[in-house]
């Protein structure tokens, strides 16, 4: 090892160095100028399977709008959030982007997307879903397809346990779980509840009437009686042995386990409709179904999920970009998109199309979608959600007591919200002093 890794001892003359620096930088600068060429086409970034399938729809858009070409770039879901934020930081966002509904507040806070003003179309969207794309009363992204979580269950196991139909409330659900766990025929769980997912707990909390945050989302509210009730119910599912304490890494064979009847209930979303149809053996196909979430007393609410389309502020052709968003969210295109991907339409009028009206397992989703609520619409939400599952897992594993976990969660989330409080206070004092 050399003590002087760079290998120079003497001072060098400055002008020459600068000259060299300039020479070395030149290719970089030149490349920067060359790539900045104006392209007449619209660019759309879409994720995963949707990014692939949407290319089947843009052809029709190009036919209706001669002179506009649409370039679709496909981004994998796992890297999408990072890629979008990095693109914003590097001023390289395309014209139209697909955004997960929970990301909309973030991009609105960044001022990266333009508000959309299509009132008629907005009125046709499921209200709970629409609310998730509205920030401070302005529609910042147009819901494209929706998802929400509900119960997937095994009809034959329920029948075997002597239960008629899916549970309608928490009490019925607990009875069903207890009977299914007691069924003969090998180790069996009532419900698959991966600990790495925050959504099931958040759904239970919403059903119990918890708001999660309070004071215009300035403070955490995880020690309220409503949240405590939901948290207790959630932990009980593990304590009673109804759900296995499993992490995501152990879930490599969900479909096989579901087919073998190792669990009877699974809280998941529409993306699993297609998966189950494909992956389950034929004989199981008639033995599973979907049902809306059971609530505290009667049908319960669930989360407003899904993706929206947004027009970037940096777009050079905002009008064409808006037209593309409008086109892709038309009911006819949404039905076509449903045929391509199985993604559920955000527009209610699309659901009366025969393709959707007669599809199996879908009715429960339509009913659930009338009862969905958005999560708190703040940029910090994903991070807070991560903390919820983090502390819930600690409580399930017994590393923290029930009250301890909630107190720790509340403190942690309050510290995450510190910057938001500072910004909101600054905005208030800024307005009062002109």
């Amino acid at each position, binding site marked *: 090892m050399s003590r002087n890794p*760079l290998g120079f001892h003497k001072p060098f003359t400055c002008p*020459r160095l600068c000259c060299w620096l300039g020479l070395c930088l030149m290719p970089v600068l030149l490349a920067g100028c060359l790539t900045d060429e104006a392209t007449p086409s619209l660019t759309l970034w879409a994720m995963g399977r949707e990014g692939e399938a949407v290319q089947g729809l843009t052809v029709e858009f190009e036919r209706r709008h001669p002179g506009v070409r649409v370039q679709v770039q496909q981004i994998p879901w796992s890297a999408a959030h990072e890629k979008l934020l990095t693109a914003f930081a590097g001023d390289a966002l395309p014209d139209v982007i697909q955004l997960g509904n929970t990301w909309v507040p973030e991009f609105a806070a960044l*001022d990266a997307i333009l508000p959309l003003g299509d009132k008629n179309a907005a009125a046709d969207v499921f209200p709970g879903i629409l609310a998730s794309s509205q920030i401070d009363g302005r529609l910042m992204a147009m819901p494209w397809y929706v998802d929400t979580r509900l119960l997937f269950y095994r009809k034959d196991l329920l029948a075997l346990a002597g239960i008629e139909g899916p549970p309608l409330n928490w009490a019925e659900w607990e009875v069903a779980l207890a009977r299914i766990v007691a069924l003969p025929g090998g180790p069996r769980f009532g419900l698959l509840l991966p600990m790495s997912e925050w959504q099931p707990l958040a759904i239970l909390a919403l059903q119990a009437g918890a708001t999660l945050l309070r004071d215009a989302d300035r403070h955490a509210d995880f020690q309220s009686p409503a949240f405590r009730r939901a948290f207790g119910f959630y932990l009980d599912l593990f304590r009673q042995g109804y759900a296995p304490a499993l992490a995501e890494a152990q879930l490599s064979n969900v479909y096989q386990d579901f087919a073998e009847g190792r669990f009877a209930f699974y809280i998941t979303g529409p993306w699993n409709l297609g998966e189950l149809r494909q992956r389950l053996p034929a004989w199981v196909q008639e033995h599973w179904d979907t049902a809306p979430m059971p609530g505290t007393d009667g049908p319960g609410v669930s989360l407003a999920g899904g993706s929206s389309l947004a027009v970037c502020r940096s777009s050079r052709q905002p009008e064409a970009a808006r037209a593309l968003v409008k086109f892709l969210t038309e009911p006819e295109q949404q039905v076509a998109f449903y045929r391509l991907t199985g993604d559920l339409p955000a527009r209610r009028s699309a659901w009366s199309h025969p393709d959707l009206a007669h599809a199996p397992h879908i009715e429960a989703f339509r009913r659930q979608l009338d009862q969905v609520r958005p999560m708190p619409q703040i*940029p910090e939400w994903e991070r807070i959600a991560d903390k919820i599952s983090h502390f819930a897992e600690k409580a399930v*594993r017994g590393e923290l007591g029930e009250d301890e976990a909630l107190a720790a969660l509340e403190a942690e989330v309050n510290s995450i919200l510190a*910057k938001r409080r500072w910004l909101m206070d600054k905005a208030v004092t800024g307005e009062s002093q002109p």
Partner: protein
Amino acid sequence: MKRQTAIPAVVWFVAPALTLIGLFFFLPLAASLLLSFTDFDIYALGRLDRLRFIGFENYRRLLNDPMFWTALKNTLYFVIVGGPLSVLVSLGAALLVNHRLTRFQGVFRTLLFLPVVTTLVVVAVVWRYLYHPRYGFLNYVLGLAGLPPIDWLGDPDWAMPAIILMAVWKNFGFNMVVFIAGLQSIPRRLYEAAEIDGADGWAQFRYITLPMLAPIFLFVTLITLIGYFQLFAEPYVMTQGGPADSTLSVALLMFQEGFRWWNFGYAAAVAFVLFLIILAGTLIQAWLRRWRSK
């Protein structure tokens, strides 16, 4: 006169490398040091007037962050158990491959080096199958031996050993090749002289091979230490830091704070603390060597 022409010549030769290092290493280093004294986050990304200089607040928060201590504990576990294990396995493999009775040395060298050049994601997918609690090969072997199955990646107590096992398997080939080069540079006459003196295999290893390998040892342990402190890719692909944060490393924490939650100020502070830890480890090791050779 002579001196004046000599200096520019040096500059001309060094300038390209220096420019690149300055531009892509020292400049970002300075920028991230500056960043670590701010609360740069998603709000500041949108509008710079939402950025606050907060002095050492990030570092203060870091030292009070249980996640950081968990990450540091996990990283030290990985370094202290995985590091020596990796060096020992590489040395053992090098001795075996380099033994004069071993045939097809080239084939073995290539095969043992193969994991190093295999993409980590591919390795991770295969190892996830090996580690599967019900269908995995490792648990099948345990079952044959009459032992109960282990939930390798799902049990907080076993996840880190599983990561260490995979990391050692993946990385030992590189050190092995370095050791082989070291072994081959030891003059044969030393062993011949020792044999004449009546030294057995162990004595030859203890008094010739090990001392002659000392500089290689320093290099290998240093590189392994630095590399293992930066543990990132293995837990990132295998467990995402779980279960119950048992495989969360300092570098993974930094990545999550920075690129997942966009808290660049805090992430930069994590990066600098990691840098200081590695620097301290390297210095201690170099100092130990010098102290022992005296």
